[in-house]
């Protein structure tokens, strides 16, 4: 273990914070889907990579910026989510374990399809602003903030605020929240739970479309990349509290900063261990996660 200069430490922490924002957007849909359906969508990572490929494809073929191509990828993922939930997932809803298996099958199918379409070469989108940075100072520390990651955090905040407002003030949002709190009671109050589940799955996938666009600008990916990312996203939503959007946001920021700082204090090889240590300790003392609620059985 070694302690780097203050300049390095602050710079790394700030970039880690920005990265955490992107993680938040990637994990938001996963926690929302779990909240409503009690199903862990293992295909979330594969759908993230699929969205990144849509952005990559539209950029490479037509020069469409990933921030613009979400106009295409969000509806595609939203509609796919509704259809998949309505005609596949809903048929196994009585057994959440089976639901996990079905989404796992979707992940493997997507991996195969993406592998045959785009091969295994790592891809990423390189725009005119890819290597642009904003230079600023924080006290005595000189900071270089990558524009793409600032945009990532900004987009994550906007997307999560829109999602929050929808959940808080729209009728569908109220119905989603009611379903999260108590599915049977919501149904008794006249909420069409089946429809709400399909819409939630669609909305969850729509957020991943946004996450995928940002992902394509920051990191390289290939069809097999989803495995490492689904484990990262699952860790985030468990730490934040399964089903809690603010919890996922907080946990994602923690992960971004902890990962980055521990990589320079220890080594990048050991940095994931620190996050998992925090996760274990949180689960010991607060099993429902940072902002999750305890579910009473019965």
């Amino acid at each position: 273990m070694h302690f780097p200069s203050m300049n390095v430490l602050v710079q790394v922490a700030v970039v880690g914070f920005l990265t955490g924002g992107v993680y938040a957007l990637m994990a938001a849909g996963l926690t929302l889907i779990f909240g409503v359906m009690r199903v862990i969508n293992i295909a979330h990572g594969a759908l993230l990579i699929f969205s990144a490929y849509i952005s990559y494809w539209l950029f490479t073929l037509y020069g469409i910026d990933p921030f613009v191509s979400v106009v295409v990828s969000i509806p595609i993922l939203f509609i796919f989510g509704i259809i998949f939930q309505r005609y596949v997932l809903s048929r196994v809803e009585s057994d959440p374990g089976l639901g996990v298996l079905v989404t796992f099958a979707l992940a493997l199918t997507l991996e195969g399809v993406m592998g045959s379409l785009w091969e295994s070469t790592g891809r990423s989108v390189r725009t005119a602003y890819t290597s642009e940075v904003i230079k600023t100072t924080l006290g005595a520390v000189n900071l270089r903030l990558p524009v793409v990651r600032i945009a990532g955090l900004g987009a994550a905040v906007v997307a999560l605020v829109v999602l929050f407002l929808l959940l808080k003030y729209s009728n569908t949002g109220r119905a989603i929240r009611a379903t999260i709190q108590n599915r049977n009671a919501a149904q008794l109050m006249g909420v069409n739970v089946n429809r709400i589940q399909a819409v939630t799955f669609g909305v969850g996938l729509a957020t991943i479309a946004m996450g995928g666009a940002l992902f394509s600008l920051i990191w390289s990916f290939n069809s097999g990349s989803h495995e490492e990312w689904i484990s990262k996203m699952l860790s985030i939503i468990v730490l934040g509290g399964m089903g809690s959007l603010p919890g996922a946001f907080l946990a994602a920021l923690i992960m971004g900063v902890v990962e980055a700082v521990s990589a320079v204090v220890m080594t990048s090889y050991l940095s994931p261990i620190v996050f998992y240590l925090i996760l274990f300790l949180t689960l010991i003392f607060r099993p429902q996660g940072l902002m999750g609620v305890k579910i009473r059985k019965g």
Partner: protein
Amino acid sequence: MKWFKSTAILFVLIALVLTACGGGGNAAGNNNNDMGNMNMNDEATEEATEATTEETVDEGPIVIGASLPLTGKFSEPGTAAKQGYEVWASIVNENGGMLGRQVELVILDNASDQDTAVADYEKLITVDEVDLVVGPFSSFLVIPTSEVAARYGYAFVEPAGGAPDVFNRGLTNIFFAQPAPGDEQAIPFINYLLSLPELPATYAVVTQDDPFVLGVMDGIKAELEKAGSELVFDEIYAPDTTDFSSIAIQVADLNPDLIVGGTVFEDSVGQIRAYQDAGYQPKGAFFTTGPSLPGPFKEALGDATEGVFAAISWSPTAPGYQNAEMVARYLEMFGGEAGNIPEDVANAFTVGQVLQQAVEATGTIDNTTLIDALHAGTFNTVVGNLSFDEVGRPQGSFMLLQWQGDSFKIVAPADRADTEAVWPKPEW
């Protein structure tokens, strides 16, 4: 019902044993080329076997088996290796085959998995009874599969396993068909650095935890230490690392003259982008793999490729036996542009050339004879003349490439260079 179940299992077991015995008998009957596998005590059986097989086998093709990573993590280089083998077989067959017999390839997909690869070679040798085998892609798969080939006495010419562990297990059936072992990949770059008026005073090594690149990095560190350059940062990262911002910020803070990246491909892109973000501008940059994949490297990095060095075993324009013919046939069979043909195609083609010349020189496909011939001979290939030492290490050297403009150029050794290297490199 319990007795029924037990009886059924017993029947299945008996059937399996009988099938296995049948397979064994068939194996003896079909392979008269591998003397090591024959029962020398039973002369009558041997004579009968030879009589049968001389009639049938000599008219049939020479079957060559391989297990390649056609899916999974290494699917791209694995597919390129398959194309290389197919281009070679196509040219050989067009020219009358080997020893007057056509060549037939049996290529299995091991999904980039070691256990599957091992099982595939077991199957190729014991069930399919192929005449010859050739290697898979990368040291990761070559190391376990070469043991299988050794167990059955098969020669194992392979295109992409050059890590130190390939050669230090006492096996004598391996022949690595590249100009030099992996850990010598950076020697042309070291020689270039030593020829500079001023050696980089400081350098950093940022490498993936991969047996191949770690071997190369050890070689570089030993040579630069000897020459007097100071290692100021040395980091090994996990193979699934995608974000290099923390590493890059540390490197930028130390600002070494030279950055050496032990990369496989995606990580070379990730590292360079992170160095750009962190504002790190070295005088020189060398990456093991990445810059040698021209299309994807340029697409991901644009002008940031300028001045980046890497080692390469082959170039479509470099002189080499049958190189122009291989390039033309590849483009005919698979399309694309010569500049984008993966190096792995040429390495697999080299395997075929080496094997063919050994077979034709000895006039046999007996693996024991071939192993001796492969140790003794010198072979003309697309990557230059190749010969092998007692453990199959090739006795040649890599070429040094540097990105200049829209493509990379060969800058060393002098007799194969397209142009001179640029130092220090422009900013990325």
